[in-house]
């Protein structure tokens, strides 16, 4: 009640009651005076002046933050990047179309026939070689190598055609 009285937020009835009490009670009177004295002194504390240009300095420090927030604003940058997005989408549509239109011979060309590989590799000598020799040939496709290995035993040989130059 003393605090509320000192701070001026006590109801009228309580205030009357407290005033009557304080007149008779030394301890409460002393406490109330002490609280009021400190409150008055603090309230009289001279305010510290704020230096000129304080607001401007705050705003100056905020401006870069505005830029960062601008980046974070997806609405702004999605609009700015919309032409780039359009180009990328167009490219995404065109590239698969070109791939489907490409000649089938490109893929077929990569296929290597076992016989032709053997002809190239043998270099015209009519000798027999182990099937595993195919491992060292770069132009043998995986399928051809697999077929050759599965179709023969490990010590099987491949007959080279004897070609005369």
């Amino acid at each position, binding site marked *: 009640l*003393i*605090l*509320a*009285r*000192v*701070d*001026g*937020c006590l109801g009228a009835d309580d205030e009357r009651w407290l*005033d009557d009490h*304080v*007149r008779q009670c030394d301890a409460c*009177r002393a406490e*109330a*005076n*002490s*609280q*009021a*004295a*400190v*409150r*008055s*002194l*603090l*309230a*009289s*504390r*001279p*305010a*510290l*002046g*704020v*230096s000129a240009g*304080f*607001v401007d*300095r*705050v*705003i100056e*420090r*905020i*401006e870069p*933050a*505005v830029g960062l*927030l*601008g980046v974070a604003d997806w609405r702004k940058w999605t609009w700015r990047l919309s032409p780039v997005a359009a180009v990328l989408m167009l490219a995404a549509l065109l590239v698969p179309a070109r791939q489907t239109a490409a000649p089938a011979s490109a893929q077929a060309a990569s296929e290597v026939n076992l016989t032709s590989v053997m002809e190239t590799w043998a270099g015209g000598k009519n000798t027999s070689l182990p099937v595993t020799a195919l491992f060292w040939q770069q132009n043998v496709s995986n399928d051809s190598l697999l077929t050759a290995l599965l179709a023969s035993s490990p010590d099987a040989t491949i007959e080279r055609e004897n070609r005369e130059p």
Partner: protein
Amino acid sequence: VDLERELAEQAASGDTDAFSELVRRYQSRIVNLARALANDGDAEDLAQEAFIRAYRGMGRFRGDSSFKTWLYRIAINVIRSHMDHRRRWSRIWGRSVDDGSAEAQRAVVSQAGFDVALVTRDAIDRALARLSPDLRVAVALRDLQGLEYREIAETLGIPIGTVESRIFRGRQVLRPLLAPFIDASADPRRAAGAPKDGRGAGVEPGHGRDAVPGTPGERRTS
């Protein structure tokens, strides 16, 4: 208050003019709060930091509380962090704290030829620095900033009863620390040099709203 909420909403959408207006309204209060709580020369830097954090967090201000208490909460957090940091450094370097004892205050107030207003402010700030952080903040918000109990409770996130108790205990601790100034204001001869408007060296206890019946110089308000 509604205008402040409106300004806050505009500031949240990037309107720096609206934010400038809010800074203008609160700059003095926040700088003085920082000065009173931190009691060092960094008051403006701390206030600036508080405003910048407020701006960056403006999107999170939903108007559940007033802008005022929301800003004070940010400012107090900034000041507390600064003080924790400073305390750690003074522990490392063994720096002594300010002597805000009543004896030291008495020595200051007995001197002649000084700016009473400045000395009073310095004495109050040093006395506040001797309170525990909880009491200091509650007393500063009430007696220096003039916030209502409800606003302080909202700012600190504590019940009103706790606010009242902290203010009451804080003033009890301050009374002996500020005794020379209170005594000087009660004794006109010692208060010589005080500004004529009654500010600076303190005001006589028992005047106006602070009057308590049964004391000399009682002047009841009705």
